[in-house]
């Protein structure tokens, strides 16, 4: 190793640390970093809703770090699906791709990532609305959301 202001001579090409060795530093400068497990998947689970009360349902999903890292900004991509009825059968899928058992035009889904009026500055989010064009009904829909996210803090995610 050498000082970052030193001339590029006699550089040690590689230094192996003990695999369980943790390095903590205020700042690291590197021209190339290999982060093997930077992107992880968080399981959000599924929720059910009906159109009993309203012709439209809000579907929201967000991911943020838990205490004491709640002020750390998260960055991810939502993995979402909406299904007609309870469960995640492919033929009952409403969004993003319609399955064979879903009547074309029955539902409208509008929305997407990052709501300007709701973003809290830290939690990455997906927010949308589904409308049953039949009006209010007892129809059940399933919303499922996971997140692929950049894990640069490794503390609990929720």
């Amino acid at each position: 190793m050498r000082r970052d202001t030193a001339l590029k001579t006699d550089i040690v090409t590689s230094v192996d640390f003990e695999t369980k060795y943790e390095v903590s530093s205020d700042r690291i400068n590197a021209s190339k970093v290999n982060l093997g497990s930077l992107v992880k998947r968080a399981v959000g689970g599924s929720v059910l809703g009906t159109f009993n009360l309203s012709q439209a349902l809000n579907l929201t999903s967000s991911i943020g770090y838990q205490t004491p890292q709640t002020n750390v900004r998260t960055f991810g991509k939502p993995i979402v699906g909406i299904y007609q009825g309870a469960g995640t059968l492919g033929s009952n899928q409403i969004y993003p791709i319609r399955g064979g058992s879903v009547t074309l035009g029955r539902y409208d889904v509008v929305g997407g990532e990052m709501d300007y009026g709701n973003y809290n500055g830290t939690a990455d989010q997906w927010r949308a609305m589904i409308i049953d064009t039949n009006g209010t009904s007892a129809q059940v829909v399933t919303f499922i959301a996971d997140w692929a996210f950049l894990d640069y803090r490794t503390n609990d995610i929720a």
Partner: protein
Amino acid sequence: MKKLLRYGNGDEYIMGDIASIEPNGIAPVEEYDLDGLTREEFRKFKENRKDKKLRAKMKRING
């Protein structure tokens, strides 16, 4: 903040979990704070919303 929203017809929706769903344009009649539950208690509550012990721990914040 994780919340339980209770609507006029008795329907309840959990907000603030990674995935959540709620009626659009309808205001809940009661809201409860779920942040007082531990992660394990929250998981149990999602499986059985009628659990009296867990319900007793929920703080009513509105309605």
